[in-house]
């Protein structure tokens, strides 16, 4: 202890210098959008480099857990495959051809990716993934964990990397539905805790319960089975017209590593339809 105090006494001027400089750099960085973009991009690059090194190390130590998850996944897939084989054994050549054509047109495709860097302590957090356009990743694809817990969706892609907006971003919006009931809701993050999100606009007929799972309801992820979290508490709003609830996130956002990027192959078609509706609603397009 004495040695530590002695050491601090020797370098206290440098420590004070670092403290004052840090405050000034932060103040300068947040003074204009230009300085914010320039300084924060540099610090993010440096932070991202170290974060990637640490992530690699953590990944090495978490290999056994990853193996367990993969083993479970393989078991599930084997079961599905076995079931398919049994079904196929009964097919005629004609029905087999039909089945193969249908399966060729997959509704959802999955791309494995790893988290290169991410933040959870800001109001607007982002996740950088190590897969980009050259791997087939595009904007608006969903991001889930291998256990099918919602993480977020892709908002920007470069050739080798992509950036996802996670649930832990105050600008994140997505629809949800209460499991087993199909009542819908809107998912929001208030920015206070990285372990909880809120759902609003739940119908008064929904009868939510503590522990009830809430699934994502969006074109970006499969319709069923992607869990956002479980209801921790809920209440009626002041006008008694809808419930709002607090969810404990299913995905541990502080320990993300391997994720799956989900492509809805019909997303372009849906987007085109929505665009057409928007165009018809504009003053010039209104009939």
């Amino acid at each position, binding site marked *: 202890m004495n040695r530590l105090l002695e050491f601090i006494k020797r370098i*206290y001027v440098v420590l*004070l210098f670092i403290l*004052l400089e840090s405050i000034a750099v932060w103040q300068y960085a947040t003074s204009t959008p230009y300085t914010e973009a320039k300084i924060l991009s540099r610090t993010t690059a440096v932070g991202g480099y170290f974060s990637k090194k640490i992530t690699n190390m953590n990944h090495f130590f978490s290999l056994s857990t990853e193996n367990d998850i993969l083993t479970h996944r393989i078991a599930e897939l084997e079961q599905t495959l076995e079931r398919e084989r049994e079904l196929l054994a009964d097919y005629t050549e004609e029905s087999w051809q039909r089945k193969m054509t249908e399966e060729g047109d997959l509704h959802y495709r999955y791309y494995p990716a790893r988290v290169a860097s991410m933040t959870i302590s800001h109001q607007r957090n982002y996740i950088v993934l190590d897969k980009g356009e050259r791997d087939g990743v595009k904007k608006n694809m969903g991001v889930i964990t291998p256990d099918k817990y919602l993480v977020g969706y892709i908002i920007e892609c470069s050739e080798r990397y992509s950036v996802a907006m996670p649930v832990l971003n105050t600008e994140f919006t997505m629809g949800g539905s209460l499991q087993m009931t199909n009542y819908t809701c809107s998912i929001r993050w208030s920015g206070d805790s990285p372990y909880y999100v809120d759902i609003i606009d739940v119908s008064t007929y929904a009868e939510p319960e503590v522990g009830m799972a809430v699934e994502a309801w969006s074109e970006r992820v499969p319709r069923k089975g992607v869990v956002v979290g479980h209801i921790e508490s809920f209440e009626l709003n002041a006008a008694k017209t809808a419930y709002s609830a607090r969810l404990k996130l299913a995905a541990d956002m502080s320990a993300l590593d391997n994720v799956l990027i989900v492509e809805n192959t019909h997303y372009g078609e849906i987007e085109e339809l929505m665009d057409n509706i928007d165009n018809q609603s504009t003053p010039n397009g209104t009939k």
Partner: protein
Amino acid sequence: MYKYTPYIWLTLSVILVQVFLLDNIDLGASISVWIRPMIFPLVILLLPVEWKSIWVLLVSYVMALVLDMLLGGSGIYVITLLPVALFRSTMLYVASRRSMESSDQSQLLARLPLGQLMLYISLSLLLYHSLFFVMETLSTANMLRLIATILLSTFTSILISWPIVRLFTSKVIG
């Protein structure tokens, strides 16, 4: 207290010259882009050599805060002036090969040969201007222009500062 009166006057006059004169001279846009002299680091460079680093750092911080408020720097003056305060002793050692810890430190600046004093002031102003313009542009897109601005502004600052330094070291603390 009275022995620090010249330093208070120096601080006030240098800040006033900087804020009301140097920052308001209209040399035309084509020259102002290249030459922006800043002489206020002189206050830190001419502080008593025997002062402890912590006091030099705190004085620099207060002065930089005042400049940030007066000139709307949003922290840039603190960022750039504190390193000058921290490395003041190193600059003096590089220029004169004399350590501040030596016993003959009182009025050391007044007894320095002119060449060494000039080198000390020039190196320190070069450090300050380099930090300032790098932090201001935050870009390496136009490196040659950045270097030219640093060198021309440093040179102009040295020209303006030198009479003040000579007057202060010979007449006031000498």
